[in-house]
Structures are given as structure tokens and as C-alpha cells.
């Protein structure tokens, strides 16, 4: 396989600051107009061990990580041991002069000389990489200014000096790597990770409350909200446990605050009783479920898509829900934003299902048009006294949606009940009322179905091979399909950014039009393929599965396809 992208992998121990180098280089590339896909691989520890921060960049769209390494920055000896084997033929190891790159083509950098103090090593590495890639010096220089500006001019100057020294060193040393071709990216693009985009999407939707309990890889959603909380008027509360988080969120939502609850597998498992509560009290709430490999603690800092079934069936009893599965960082923003409106409109729990890979994966994203966002769906606030006197929280309606008043905003009494209840919200054990309320709740499912986002379809309508996928695997699958087409196979891709509910009638013809259908997902059982069969009766011919904690690449898909 060959492609025009360059893959830079920065490796080192936790605590060495490789994420700083990585993020600054990535941002320089984005500002320089390049496309990027970042893959962060880190261990469940604070110092030591071995982590990598990989940036695949190109002038063209890059949508997935890749195994091949073009530039390997080894901040630790172990980086060479673990990753130099993946070096491309014309690849290069960049390594401190005191470490050993063995027989691999390499440049030994005198970091101690370039950086007067150890703390500047990261900027030195940035300079080396910027020079090797042929980036305009002003881009990283300005970034240093933006980043360290609030620490004072002196700090900025010191850092820029190291940057310049490092770039100069490359030129003098005669170290050589092909410059990146001129880039095409437009103005104003953002560099965002999946979790940042979820947080920003929530803010754009008017989120007012977030309750959470820390859990990798979901914590950064809350941390991002916290850092803007004061400015944006968002209350973020760290709860005593996940059960408190979900129930606190439901209380907040009841009182009128748009609410998000970010969590991950085990934490979400603890919330499932609360999900059921949301179902019966018909409380809008958005869950950001950022997946990692299980069961139980599993691989806490790695990636997997194995909690689809859990999200689908979380909670005892039966009630409608919607599940989004963004496939790009941009979709993380858009679908989180949409989740709030859909949650309010159908007074149901709505899920944004992402995973560690996407959570931590930086990309260049086109700027969002905040003005163009749809008007938010809002609950009932004002009500005159006559209406208020008649108000019933669970009035029977054709759509199943009953007007939702916010307590304290009028004289209406809003009564939410976890027991089966009469239209006015009070506890009942009456058979007929039960059936009427359960039917009313389930009718909302038809509304949800009517708003389903159809899968994205790329490629021939009657392909030899249709690759079905959902969520974060989109990029790798698109790339695999492109490679197949490049080598003469008619391949298409069907990517689901909403995985529930599914519109069986619309799907079946498309599935049946393909000669062969394979479903690509990051889990061991093929949960989406099973869901597809459950909903449509259609059985995919092949499941392409990965569950070692790493994201798919095009190559890993093609290998399983035998292509």
C-alpha cells in the first residue's frame, strides 16, 4: 500500500510531554492547511510505560490512522524497540544523541544543546519536525505565542528561540526529509478532538448542567465543559458516583436545565437503572458514552465499540431511545447538538456513542456555523393559571409526547413518577391506565423513527462488496473501500451515524443490492451486524472485527477481507 500521507509517530514515556509536541505539531499542520488524523495510544498510568502520539497528515483528506511510520520521534529508547520496525522504507528516526537508533535510518539530535533546559525539549522537537516537513517557521512561532502568551513575553521569546535553534540545526545538519507539498485547507478551520467536539456541541445546544464521575476516556468531555462553565453559565458537578451522576442529571433536567452525562462502560453500567427512570418519567437527557474495551476494567485507555448492546438495552422495562454514533469529529459536534433537541422533542434518553480512539483523535474540522443551527426545542415555561390548573404531565396524545412543563415557572404542578402513573403523574396500579401510558410512551418511538438519520452511502449502488460500519470506524472503512476500488473491486461503504432506531424498509434494498456485505466493527461479536439482522432479518456475509484495543486501519480491514 502506498499513499501520499506522512505519518509522524512521537513515542516516549508518560510524563515526557509527548502529547504537547504532538498537539503543537498537529495544530501547526492544521493552521498550515493540512489534513490530519491523530491516534493517541497511552497506558493506564501517569509516568513511565510507553505512549505514542501519531499524526497522519496529507494535503488530501486523511480519515484513519495507518501502521506505516514515516517519521518516528523517539523520546525514549523503548520507542525504537517498539516502533522502529514499522518504519517506511524511506522513513526516519529522530532521536536524542544520547539514545541509540540501531541500524534504522535516523537523525541524532543534540536536544541538550538546542534546549537550554529539559522543559524546552518539546519545543525543540517541534522545531525539528517543522523544519523536516518544510513548514513555514511563522506557523509554529505564532502558535507558541498563542499558547504561552499569557505566561508573558519572556517565556514566549525563550520558546521561540529554541524553535528557531532547532529549525536552524536541521538545516545545518543537512538532515533531509521530503517537504510536505503545498496545502489546500481553507481559512478558519479548527483542530478538535472528538471529546472536545462533543463538549462544544453540547454548549452550542445550550447545555446547562453536567453531572459526571471521572472515567477514562469520557472525563475530558466534562473537563472541557468545566473549563468554559463559568463563562457559559453551565453547572458541572462531580458526583459521588455514577448513580448519583445520572439521578442528579435527571433532577436537573426535570428542573429545566439541558443536561448531559458523560461516562464510559462500567460507569454507564451503573447508570442503567437511571436510564430506565428517564424512560418512564419521560425526562430528556443526553448521555455521552465514550467506549473502551471491557469486560469490567478491561483496557481502560484503549478503544472498542463493544457497548452498543448495552446502550441499546440499558434499563429494565421498555421505552424508546435514540443512539447516535458519530463517525467524524465534525459529527461529534453536530450529533451532540442534535441529541439535545431530539431528547427534548421525544422526552427520552438519547445517546452519543463514541470511543477512546475518536475521543482523543484530533482532526482539522471546518468551522461550525453557530448562526445556522436550528432553533432549540424547549419545554413549556409560561402558562396562565387556568391552563396551569388543568395541566397534566402525562396527558395522552397521538404522538405520545405530552407537553412538558418546568416546575416553578408557572402555577402548574409537575409530577414525575417512577411508578406507573395516571396522566397527572400520580401512582396507579390500574391495568388500563398502565396500558394507555405504556402505549403512549412507545408511540414516541414512531416519531424517533421518522427522524432517523439514514446511513451515509459512498460508492456504487450495486457493488461487489458493501462495507457496513458505524461510529468511529468510518474513516478506515472509507479508505479501505477506496483502496479496493483502486485495485479494481467495486466496493461501497454504508456508514451509520445513527444506529438506533433503524429504518428496516429503507435498508433492506440497499443491502440486498450488494453482491456481498461485510460489517466492520471494533468488537468481538459483531454487535451491529446482529442488530441489523434483528431489525431487518438481513444476515451479513462476513464480520470484520477488531478487539485488541487499537483502531482499525485500512490495512487491517483489507487483511481480514483477504484483499
Amino acid at each position, binding site marked *: 500500500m502506498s499513499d501520499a500521507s506522512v505519518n509522524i509517530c512521537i513515542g516516549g514515556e508518560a510524563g515526557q510531554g509527548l502529547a504537547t509536541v504532538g498537539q503543537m505539531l498537529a495544530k501547526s499542520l492544521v493552521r498550515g492547511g493540512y489534513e490530519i488524523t491523530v491516534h493517541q495510544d497511552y497506558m493506564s498510568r501517569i509516568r513511565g510505560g510507553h505512549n505514542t502520539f501519531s499524526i497522519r497528515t496529507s494535503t488530501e483528506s486523511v480519515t484513519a490512522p495507518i501502521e506505516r511510520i514515516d517519521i518516528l520521534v523517539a523520546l525514549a529508547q523503548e520507542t525504537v524497540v517498539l516502533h522502529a520496525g514499522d518504519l517506511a522504507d524511506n522513513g526516519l528516526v529522530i532521536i536524542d544523541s544520547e539514545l541509540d537508533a540501531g541500524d534504522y535510518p535516523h537523525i541524532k539530535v543534540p536536544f541538550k544543546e538546542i534546549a537550554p533546559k529539559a522543559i524546552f525539549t518539546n519545543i525543540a522537537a517541534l522545531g525539528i519536525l517543522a523544519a523536516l516537513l518544510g513548514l513555514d517557521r511563522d506557523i509554529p512561532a505564532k502558535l507558541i505565542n498563542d499558547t504561552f502568551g499569557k505566561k508573558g513575553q519572556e517565556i514566549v521569546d525563550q520558546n521561540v528561540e529554541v524553535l528557531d535553534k532547532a529549525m536552524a540545526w536541521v538545516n545545518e545538519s543537512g538532515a533531509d526529509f521530503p517537504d510536505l507539498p503545498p496545502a489546500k485547507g481553507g481559512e478558519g478551520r479548527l483542530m478538535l478532538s472528538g471529546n472536545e467536539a462533543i463538549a462544544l456541541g453540547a454548549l452550542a445546544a445550550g447545555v446547562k448542567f453536567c453531572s459526571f464521575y471521572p472515567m477514562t476516556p469520557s472525563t475530558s468531555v466534562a473537563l472541557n465543559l468545566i473549563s468554559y462553565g463559568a463563562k457559559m*453559565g453551565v453547572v458541572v*458537578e462531580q458526583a459521588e458516583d455514577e448513580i*448519583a451522576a445520572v*439521578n*442528579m442529571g435527571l*433532577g*436537573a433536567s426535570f428542573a429545566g436545565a439541558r443536561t448531559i452525562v458523560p461516562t464510559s462502560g462500567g460507569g454507564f453500567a451503573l447508570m442503567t437503572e437511571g436510564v430506565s427512570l428517564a424512560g418512564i418519567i419521560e425526562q430528556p437527557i443526553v448521555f455521552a458514552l465514550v467506549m473502551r474495551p471491557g469486560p469490567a476494567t478491561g483496557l481502560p485507555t484503549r478503544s472498542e465499540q463493544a457497548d452498543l448492546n448495552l446502550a441499546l438495552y440499558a434499563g429494565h422495562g421498555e421505552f424508546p431511545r435514540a443512539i447516535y454514533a458519530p463517525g467524524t469529529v465534525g459529527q461529534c459536534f453536530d450529533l451532540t447538538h442534535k441529541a439535545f433537541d431530539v431528547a427534548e422533542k421525544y422526552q427520552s434518553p438519547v445517546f452519543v456513542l463514541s470511543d477512546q480512539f475518536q475521543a482523543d483523535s484530533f482532526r482539522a474540522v471546518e468551522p461550525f456555523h453557530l448562526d445556522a443551527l436550528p432553533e432549540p426545542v424547549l419545554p413549556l415555561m409560561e402558562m396562565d393559571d387556568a391552563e396551569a390548573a388543568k395541566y397534566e404531565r402525562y396527558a395522552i396524545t397521538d404522538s405520545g409526547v405530552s407537553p412538558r412543563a418546568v416546575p*416553578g415557572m408557572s402555577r402548574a404542578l409537575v409530577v*414525575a413518577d417512577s411508578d406507573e402513573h395516571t396522566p397527572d403523574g400520580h401512582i396507579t396500579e390500574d391495568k388500563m391506565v398502565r396500558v394507555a401510558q405504556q402505549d403512549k410512551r412507545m408511540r414516541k418511538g414512531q416519531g424517533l423513527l421518522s427522524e432517523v438519520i439514514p446511513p451515509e452511502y459512498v460508492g456504487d449502488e450495486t457493488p461487489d462488496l458493501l462495507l457496513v460500519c458505524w461510529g468511529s470506524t468510518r474513516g478506515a472503512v472509507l479508505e479501505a473501500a477506496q483502496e479496493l476500488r483502486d485495485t479494481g473491486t467495486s466496493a461501497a461503504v454504508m456508514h451509520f451515524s445513527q444506529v438506533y432506531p433503524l429504518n428496516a424498509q429503507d435498508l433492506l434494498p440497499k443491502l440486498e443490492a450488494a453482491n456481498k456485505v461485510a460489517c466492520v466493527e471494533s468488537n468481538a461479536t459483531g454487535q451491529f451486524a446482529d442488530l441489523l439482522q434483528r431489525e431487518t432479518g438481513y444476515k451479513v456475509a462476513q464480520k470484520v472485527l477488531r478487539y485488541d484495543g487499537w483502531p482499525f486501519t485500512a490495512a487491517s480491514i483489507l487483511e481480514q477481507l483477504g484483499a
Partner: protein
Amino acid sequence: MASPDVSIEAYGEYETAWCPGCGNFAILKSVKTALAGLGLEPHQVLMVSGIGQAAKTPHYLNANVFNGLHGRSLPAAQGAKLSNPELKVVVESGDGCSYGEGGNHFIAALRRNVDITLLAHDNQIYGLTKGQASPTTMEGQVTKAQPGGVMNSPFNPIAVAVAMKASFVARGFSGSGELLVKLIQQAIEHPGFALVDILQPCVSFNKTNTFSWYRERVYELDESYDPTDWSAAMEKAYEFGEKIPLGVIYRNDRPRLGSRIPAVSAGPLAKQPVPMDTLSSIMAKYA
């Protein structure tokens, strides 16, 4: 916000699912009297509860109601209060709900000090599930689920709350209605987390701590008792035998959580605009 002339009738009168003779009837009456006496109108009040006999209370008066999950009333109540500081939030739940299933939320709420009131109907038994030991059931008491007698030492909510320097800790008794009304009112007016542990006879399942068992033991703390004296409070907290003190056991004025969060001080979150311009400038930082 409170209007001075709210009558108890405004809180309505409903059929209940309680056993005749249950202490909950008297508590319900005290709650309605207390709310009306404070001049609170039903729509200004949010009653939050879990699941159990006590937790049915909110269904038997007029108010906003969040009747959630067993043991989970406190988080829901705090979430609601943080989102709308103008609501008077009162939690009603049993000893099992508050100190058993919800034990972690209880100790967290004591620490967090959100301005809500917990009325724990403490019948020292799991009523609704037919008489298993609750955290406050006395050692040695025999139940169907504990035929050899309860082996755990009982949870003393007052002692734990005082030890954790909770901001308002009181004990009431369903049979001392006038005092109970006063305690509930003080708890609601206290600007922080207020616990009122209310002794409540369960005529069906607790044959040990009966109405007369309580009646014989309870006495009202008098003026000479200083609830701001922590050491005295710690001592009173352990009086639960021959004599049981009723009244405000402990009180302090540490700041409530909401007062420190700017967004909360600005009023109901639902009414606050979304500052899109601020968001635009935040997003610009990612460019």
C-alpha cells in the same frame, strides 16, 4: 416569594395506601402544616422521593413531585435545586431509602451542603418490602429476614451527620406534631442541607419501636441546649435508649454549595440565555 396566607387546604387531601395507625399520616399532616405556615404555595415546592412507604408521601399533597428511584432521591433533589435555586426542595424518604440504598448519597449530601431538606421517615424497618431490617433497626431485633436477630450495629444518622459537621441536624417524632412542624420549617428555612430524622412507628412490621416505645422515651430539648455547640451535639447524638432527645441537635452556618457557583446564583438555569457570542470566541481558540 412566599405569600403569607396559604391555607393547609391548598395542599389538598388524598387517599393513601398506608396502613391505619401508621406514623406517616401524622408526618404528612405536619409537612402540609409546615409548608402552609411558611406561606409557600404548592407550585413553589418540589417534593422529591425514592421508593418505599415514606416515599409515597409526595403523592398525597399538592406540589411539584419527582418520585424517582429507591435510594436516589438526594442526587435528584440536588440536581433540581442547583438548576432552580428558587424552588423549595424537600426530600421525603424512608430510613432504608436514605441510609441504606442511598447511603453514599447521604454522606455526599452532608458534605455538599446544597440548600435542600431531607425528611427521613425513620421507622427503623423496611416497610414496603414487608419488614426486613433497615440500617437503623436495632441490634438483636428479629425479622423474617434476620431470624437470628440483626447482627449489624445500627446506623446512627444523627451521629454521622454531626460527626461530619453537617449544617443542620434535627430529630423529630411523628407523635410530636407541633414540634415537628417547627423543625420542618426551620429545616426548610436553613440555607444549606438540613436533615430531620423523624421517628415514625410502623404498626405492621416494627413491633419493637412502637408508638408508645417512642412516646415513653422522647423529650424535647429546651432553651438551655445550644445546637451550635458541636461537642454537646455529639453527645446528644448517642442518646437513643432510655431517653431520646427531639429538636435541633446541631447547626452551623457553613456556606451552601449553590452560593459559590456563579451560574446558580443567577437564578433558574432554564431562564438563562445561551451566550452564543462567548461560545464563538471560545471556538475561535481552536482555530
